[in-house]
């Protein structure tokens, strides 16, 4: 310890870290409450629904389908897919008996899940469930980990104040109310053009829509909202709901294909063993729907809460505040991916068990 402290390199790094921490504490919103706050950024706009990244209202309006607009979560999901595809292409390009590093790593991950599948569902069914379980894990973990990369949520399209106010008024008109411009919050951005970067200046450079309207035409700042180009794919309920639906549909498909349609459906509509078993079966059917909901909101809630946590920490203590939470988010992202995959596996295994063979 003493030798470590006397090394000039370590001392320098330690001093730099200390300076950063002090600057972050004093310069952020936390320090802002005591008269500091010189480097803090205004808190980023938190929105539940994914935002379309294109300025035009819509790309295609398909009848009975709705208007299709590319959102930032779709872009993130597609980048995760591309990354996974490239990694697997690189890893399997030159297959060798004695694997190289990438091939070895891929094999190690697959080995873990193959073993889990074969332990939970037996060798034959395990092999059948494996691709879906593995794909869910890889996709979720890739999307979660990519979601905390720098640039996610901080670089995006600049939506000007006029657009924001226009949208708010449109929405209010639809509900038959007046737009409450005091509640429309706008951030002030540097630079010009359509690109916006999460501002990195004073904490208090935030104005409301009403204030903006009151300003004179020429003196208005470049206020508006940041619509990020990338946003962690699993902070979109559509994505997690889609995953949950695919997982549960596949679980029931396997249930039907292994047990037969009547046996499988008979588990939920049980007319043979009296009213109590009928009620139990119906309850089980209800719990299948609850499983979809818990799948959806577990992943969404964890990842969205993580994003919000990072935003709030970046707001409170800029520069260093998010560092420990980045580690936490890496862990949470991994665990959530693992849980999603494992629960799918367990549901699939229980859905394909013959109830008669258990002897009751």
């Amino acid at each position, binding site marked *: 310890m003493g030798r470590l402290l006397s090394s000039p390199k370590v001392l320098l790094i330690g001093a730099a870290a200390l300076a950063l921490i002090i600057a972050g504490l004093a310069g952020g919103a936390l320090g802002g409450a005591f008269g500091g706050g010189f480097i803090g950024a205004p808190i980023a706009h938190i929105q539940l*629904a994914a935002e379309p990244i294109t300025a035009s209202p819509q790309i295609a309006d398909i009848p009975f389908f*709705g208007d299709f607009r590319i959102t930032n979560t*779709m872009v993130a999901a597609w980048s995760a*897919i591309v990354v996974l595809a490239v990694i697997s292409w690189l890893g399997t390009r030159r297959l060798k008996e004695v694997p190289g590093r990438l091939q070895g790593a891929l094999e190690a991950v697959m080995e873990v899940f193959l073993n889990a599948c074969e332990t939970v569902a037996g060798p034959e069914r395990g092999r059948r469930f494996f691709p879906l379980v593995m794909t869910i894990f890889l996709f979720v973990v890739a999307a979660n980990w990519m979601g905390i990369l720098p640039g996610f949520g901080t670089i995006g399209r600049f939506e000007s104040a006029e657009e924001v106010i226009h949208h708010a008024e449109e929405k209010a008109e639809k509900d038959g109310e007046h737009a409450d411009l005091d509640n429309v919050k706008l951030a002030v951005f540097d630079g010009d053009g359509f690109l916006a970067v999460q501002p990195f200046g004073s904490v208090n450079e935030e104005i409301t829509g009403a204030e903006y309207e009151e300003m004179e035409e020429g003196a208005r700042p470049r206020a508006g909202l940041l619509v990020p180009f990338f946003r962690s794919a699993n902070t*979109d*309920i559509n994505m997690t709901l889609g*995953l949950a*639906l695919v997982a549960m549909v596949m679980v029931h498909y396997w249930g039907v294909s292994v047990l037969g349609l009547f046996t499988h459906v008979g588990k939920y509509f049980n007319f043979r063993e009296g009213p109590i078993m009928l009620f139990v079966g119906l309850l089980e059917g209800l719990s299948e729907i609850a499983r979809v909901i818990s799948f959806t909101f577990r992943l969404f809630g964890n990842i969205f809460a993580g994003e919000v946590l990072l935003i709030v920490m970046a707001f409170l203590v800029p520069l260093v505040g998010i560092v420990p939470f980045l580690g936490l988010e890496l862990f949470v992202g991994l665990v959530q991916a693992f849980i999603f995959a494992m629960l799918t596996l367990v549901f699939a295994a229980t859905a394909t068990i013959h109830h008669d063979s258990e002897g009751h």
Partner: protein
Amino acid sequence: MEALGINLPGLVTAIVSFTALYLILHFLLYKPLLNVMDQRSAKIKESLETAQTAREEAQRSREEMEKQVGAARAEGQAMIAQAREVAERFREEELAKARQEIEAQRARAAADIRREKAAAIEELRGQFAGLAITAAERVVGESVDEASHRRLIEEVLDESAILGGRS
């Protein structure tokens, strides 16, 4: 639903994207890698079995060899014993022969000595008789009948212990 952000286009896009990823990974990752892994485990199993049989084979051949070595050792032992016996017999034969020869030589030497001794005694006796006669002639002064004298001396000599016993 709209406030939560759930909409049909987004949901369909998510499902389609995930299905596409499933297919991509299925053909790009799982199939080739599972193939390689299965092949490898089959190969490992095979080589383990081969190693097992090889070990058994080695065990067997070692036992065989040990048996052979044991037999060869016994044979060698027997051969050595036989050779030693032969050598022993040979030595004893030689020894006996040498002893016999020595015995014969000694006997020859003894016979020679006896013969020499007899000859010497004979000669001595002749000289002694002549000497005695001469002495007696001097004493008596006259020539005695030589023939009777000689007979007399012969008788005396025969009676004496030293020069008698002519064999």
